[in-house]
């Protein structure tokens, strides 16, 4: 499941620290909404929630940076950029490969059936 398009609302059930963690794992650009209402688009590549003053680090959309922004200056983070990792995990690859193999095997069986219709056919 991709978080692409998610606009989280920080509140009782979702903390900013949790949203930052999601953004850190996200392989796409996000829009950081600052506490003063201004926004910046960039790629969050680092965060330290255990620091005395927790912060995120990001490169902006032009690749400039790294910039550091404390959590206290962030209102929320919107997952606005394309998720470049969606569907590209190792697990997804294995599943895709298995599906392709099964499909190829099925095609081979179907091809063979013309010559040798066996009892396995329904």
């Amino acid at each position, binding site marked *: 499941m991709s978080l692409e398009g998610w606009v989280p609302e920080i509140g009782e059930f979702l903390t900013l620290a949790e949203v930052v963690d999601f953004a850190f794992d996200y392989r796409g*650009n996000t829009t950081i909404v600052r506490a003063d209402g201004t926004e910046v688009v960039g*790629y969050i590549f680092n*965060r330290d929630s255990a620091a005395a003053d927790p912060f995120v680090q990001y490169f902006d*959309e032009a690749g400039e940076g*790294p910039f550091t922004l404390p959590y206290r200056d962030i209102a929320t983070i919107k997952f606005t950029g394309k998720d470049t990792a969606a569907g590209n995990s*190792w*697990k997804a*690859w*294995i599943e895709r490969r298995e599906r392709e193999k099964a499909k190829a095997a099925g095609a081979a069986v179907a091809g063979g059936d013309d010559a040798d219709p066996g009892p396995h056919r329904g």
Partner: protein
Amino acid sequence: MSVPLSQMITVASYVIKQKLAGRKRYPLVLMLEPLFRCNLACAGCGKIQYPAQILRKHMTVEAGVAAAVECGAPIVSIPGGEPLMHPEIGRLVAELVKLRKYVYLCTNAILLAEKLPLFTPSKYLTFSVHMDGLREDHDEAVCRDGVYDQAIAGIRAALGRGFRVTTNTTLFDGASPLRMRQFFDEMMDLGVEGMMLSPGYSYSKAPDQEHFLRRARTHQLFTDMLSNAKRRWRFNQSPLFLRFLMGKHDYECTPWGNPTYNVFGWQRPCYLLQEGYARTFRELIETTAWERYGRKSGNEKCRDCMVHCGYEATAVDHTFGSLRAFGETVGLTLTGKL
């Protein structure tokens, strides 16, 4: 085994010095990723999924050299992305060679023949060409037909110009031991100096039993491949690591053994997991919660991992940990038996 004597001596003296100095955590191989961009999009590769502005970024030569100096590891591996796409890769390698670092430039070799004039043959420089098996297997792994033949052409060109060339192979579930043995023959026929093997990394939240089977399958695969290893096969890596993959040794991960530096900084905790970045190598070593990683930690991301970047340094450390282990390594190296 095929590591040249001078390199063996360099590594051995370095490790012994670390042990004499009482350093518990020391780096053996710096993984220097100068860019994430690649000219392939191999399925299962987690290194290239970034927004465009990140893929366009290149590490400066100065930053790469500074990282190598700060880290101090005797070996620098340059993966990526595809390092040959870095605009200053020739200068970066030349500067590292000046520091007498043993540089392994990891490449898919698509651009190798074209870029060779940027480099000078040296005992310090090795092209480590990504080859995941015979033609059909490799082209499937990289999701493009013809790449195997391009890599072979690149290897031949590099060997022809007097460069050191090794191969690096990642093995996944379903690899055929028989075909891999044929592949080893083919690489030896080609004339490469040696081969490097590693199982692929898979992070899964599967139940324990499945994890266990995965590890057992890795042992079985490497046992089937490497039992009765032919004498002509040369592996450019620790024989104890290969025996670990065969299930003959039980090691714990040393994630600090192959620290990773890239355009984001020093990656915590290792080459495969990306859990944050430190600004300096010292900060990485001193502030990473190392106890959270490795099999014994219970971290599910580490449970199945048997990858070289976590365990080869362990094997090398083990070699110099006792006379028995040293003797075992020497014996395996001389006989070629695993």
